[in-house]
């Protein structure tokens, strides 16, 4: 799994490539929580290159989401592949997370 962090105005975009699972979850959650602790609380995860999300991956999303909202920010997802979206839908995450078809729309959706 690779993580790239980029700043787009007031929004932090975390691009993830590969599999979010029990073997990669700790690395990812640490990277995301570092951003939140540094005050960058408007997070968009760019999911275009995420191939797989397991239950451990879902726990990363939940931890990050709760932390971001407690700090007054949010976590949003962009460009989710159909197989990953299926897992998110099955586990109810699409009802608590805002998901966007493209990255510019996700970035634009975040309030300043």
């Amino acid at each position, binding site marked *: 799994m690779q993580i790239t962090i980029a700043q787009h105005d007031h929004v932090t975009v975390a691009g993830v490539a590969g*599999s979010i*699972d*029990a*073997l990669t979850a700790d690395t990812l959650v640490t990277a995301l929580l570092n951003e939140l602790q540094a005050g960058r609380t408007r997070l968009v995860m760019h999911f275009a290159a995420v191939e*797989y999300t*397991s*239950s*451990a991956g*879902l*726990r990363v999303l*939940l931890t990050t989401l709760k932390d971001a909202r407690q700090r007054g920010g949010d976590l949003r997802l962009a460009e989710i592949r159909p197989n990953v979206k*299926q*897992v998110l*839908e*099955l*586990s*109810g*995450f699409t009802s608590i997370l805002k998901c966007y078809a493209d990255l510019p729309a996700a970035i634009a959706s975040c309030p300043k």
Partner: protein
Amino acid sequence: MNAPGVALVIGAGGVKCAASIGLQRCLNHEKIPIDLVVGCSGGAIYAAAIALGHDPASAAGMTAKLWTRDVTAATDRGALARMVFPKLLGFTERFGLKKDALVNARLKEGFGDATFADCKIPLFITATDFKTGEQVTISEGRIADAVRASIAVPFAFAPWEVNGRLCVDGFLSDPLPVGVAIREGAHVIIAMGFESPNQERITSGGRFAFQLSTIMTNNLLKASFAFHGLAHHSEVIAVIPQFSQRIRLFDTEKIPLLIDEGEAAMREQLPYLRRLLMSVPATHSA
């Protein structure tokens, strides 16, 4: 005592559960042992076959003979009359609109008098307590009785008593009972589940009721899967086959297709499963 390394959970889904034979075939081929099996409703049939040591070919043959359209063909006219005139004819909780003699005979033919003690892999079958709605986890007694309770489809088959509890179909409490595997201490849980298809057209009261059941079941599946995925200490690998054809409850002629597509769905998860098993602590290794 070592915790189970790999648990297989097969959820409710009628004949679609035959996809679990493909999953089993894939794991057998890759020499990945299953340490514990949980089955619910249609999944109970396949879980029991796997736990008793049927290889994929014999499990496919046995279950294809067991679950055919004619098991629900005979309407119980007496039950129908008791539903219409409950006070006059005496309505009871052991209500089902279909005669269950054939399905009971098929279960006897398939599983004989085998008990849970005969299983080569620990087996757990889930049903639902008709009086309380609680999930009932069955792990002792005759397997045919446990399966019969687990497939007691509401309105079709009458509830079935197991170990002193009157049970209905396991899907009513949890269509994909991952919680049983978590409770038994499983580390990696492979969960094969199936969403119920929505009715294409509502042309009868039966289809109307079926659609309501589909809505509730699918929402329960999602809620339960979400909770268990977040609650488990390790990993739940969801294997949710997306079949290339619409599969109806008794499409047993499509079992070969279901097996192939179940195997393909499992094969997609194999690289990760292999890496995960290599990282499993020794006390959990299979």
